[in-house]
């Protein structure tokens, strides 16, 4: 067990190294440099000085090695060329909002998606099933940038406690997390339905029925464990995606999360923020995947971690 986790963490380290390499060279190949952005009219000498100050004048391979060295020895993710602030500062300041948004969106996604999926599977080809899957389809096909404004127009306009946009009051979490979580909820509903249907077709479900269990107990005691495995495996990456993919929702509802910094950095070619944030997200994904696999293993007696 411990060995397995260590192995996975080591693998994660390799993933991080590969991630860093990809981002480093892609950003390195982007034409121009962070200081050539259009609006700033700065003289060539000043530009050279600024490049020197951020170490961007050195050959690419040196830069490639310096960044991880600084990360390991000083724990530094660099300084933003755009905002002139340490990247850690930016992350620590904006991550909590993204985290809260992501967690509450995940709760909504699981709370809505999984029950709909189970219900649809047990009532296959009935009105309940069709209704549930229709809702799921809507969740998949109507993107957050339509749902968000519509929620603002309907709920926020009618209910005074819900502000159209802003972040500060606990109630402000509600609308953005619904907007963010709905798509994931829809995907989870379809995933759960599919795997539950597969399990409900298994021979051992028939055995359970033959034992005299009522339909409800058959589903809860015998089908749910296997039926939820794919969903559990999906929740790990989905959670990471909710945290790292909330730019649009953050924009609509003016949530001071990490998304804006990240997109900005990509547009402005801020190499340090890009590297730092990608590494940070990568770490998050590695851990979430590990957590999901561990939970899945705990649910499934056939997977023995010692052997892998």
């Amino acid at each position: 067990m411990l060995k397995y986790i260590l192995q996975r963490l080591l693998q994660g380290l390799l993933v991080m190294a590969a991630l860093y390499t990809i981002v480093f060279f892609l950003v390195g190949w982007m034409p121009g440099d962070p200081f050539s952005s259009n609006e700033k009219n700065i003289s060539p000498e000043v530009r050279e000085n600024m490049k020197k100050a951020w170490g961007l004048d050195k050959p690419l391979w040196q830069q490639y090695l310096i960044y991880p060295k600084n990360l390991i020895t000083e724990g530094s993710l660099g300084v933003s060329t755009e905002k002139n602030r340490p990247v850690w500062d930016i992350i620590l300041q904006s991550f909590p909002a993204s985290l809260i948004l992501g967690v509450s969106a995940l709760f909504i996604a699981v709370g809505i998606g999984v029950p709909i999926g189970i219900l649809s599977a047990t009532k296959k080809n009935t009105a309940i099933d069709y209704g549930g899957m229709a809702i799921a389809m809507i969740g998949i096909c109507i993107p957050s940038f339509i749902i968000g404004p519509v929620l603002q127009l309907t709920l926020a306009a009618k209910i005074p406690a819900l502000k159209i946009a802003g972040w500060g009051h606990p109630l402000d979490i509600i609308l953005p997390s619904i907007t963010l979580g709905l798509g994931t909820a829809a995907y989870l509903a379809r995933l759960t339905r599919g795997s539950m249907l597969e399990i409900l077709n298994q021979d051992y479900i028939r055995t359970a029925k033959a034992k005299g269990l009522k339909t409800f107990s058959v589903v809860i005691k015998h089908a749910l464990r296997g039926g939820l495995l794919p969903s559990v495996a999906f929740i790990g990456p989905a959670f990471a995606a909710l945290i790292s993919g909330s730019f649009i929702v953050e924009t609509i509802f003016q949530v001071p999360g990490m998304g804006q910094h990240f997109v900005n950095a990509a547009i402005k070619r801020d190499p340090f923020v890009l590297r730092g944030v990608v590494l940070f997200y990568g770490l998050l994904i590695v851990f979430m995947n590990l957590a999901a696999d561990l939970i899945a293993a705990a649910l499934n007696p056939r997977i023995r971690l010692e052997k892998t």
Partner: protein
Amino acid sequence: MRISLPTESELEKGSSLGRDAWARLRKNKLAMLSMCFIGLMLIICFIVAQLPFIDDPNEQNLENRFAPPSGDHIMGTDQLGRDLFSRILFGGQISMLVGFIATGVALLIGITYGAISGYAGGRTDAIMMRVVDTLYAIPFLVLVIVLKVVIAGPMEEQLKWMGRFANIVPLFFAIGALGWLTLARITRTQVMAIKEQEFVEAATSLGLSKMRILFRHIVPNTLGPAIVYATLTIPSFILFEASLSYLGVGIEAPNSSWGILIKEGADFLETQLYLLIIPGLFFSLTLFAFNFLGDGLRDALDVRASKD
């Protein structure tokens, strides 16, 4: 002392899988309706848009801003007095092109990669799949932005002949170049299953080259799931482009896409709701159609689900 009786599979009449699937698909009304809708959308966006009576989507008329739907402008005009209907048609061209071309790129890379990985097996397979795992950990959105900028420069010369489409092709490639991961996994699983089958052994014993066996004999048998997944990938890429455009980093003027129209509409949400609703409707209905068609194809082609 056992009587051999015919098994179920022997009893089934042999019929071509493709024709079978088509017959099943034809019985799925929702999928057929979706297919017609997609066809209609393609005709409207690419053929009707060329007709002389369709207004120039970029022609501004500041004296006729926010005109409600009327005989002149059947869907009204936007904040710059441009005809909404023709903007939807031309925006639809881009959205559809993104869906199809990016999916084509993803299919090409994904199938080749997955097929080689699955066929090679062993260490090669392990390494190739680790690479896929790593790429999964990259925040997709940001990398597409970066990649688009990186490949836009070198491609500029070659794409001049494409006119107004020239500056969006890099986006197609960026999306496709990163969107093939799941396709590769699906193909790999399929290839691994098929390469164990007897006809492959037969082909090997005939002395055919490995490449020929793989791409002429194995890959065609994996296309079913790939087609299904590709049908579901098209709407997700359309959605993805819309998200990029919504953030202002996707399609650039003079082109527009449904995502841009929705974003513009959302700005005038409170007073001119139709500017959000009409493009949103076109957009969502198209996504619905692709998803329903994909679901229908999956039901029709999925061998596992074809038994009642």
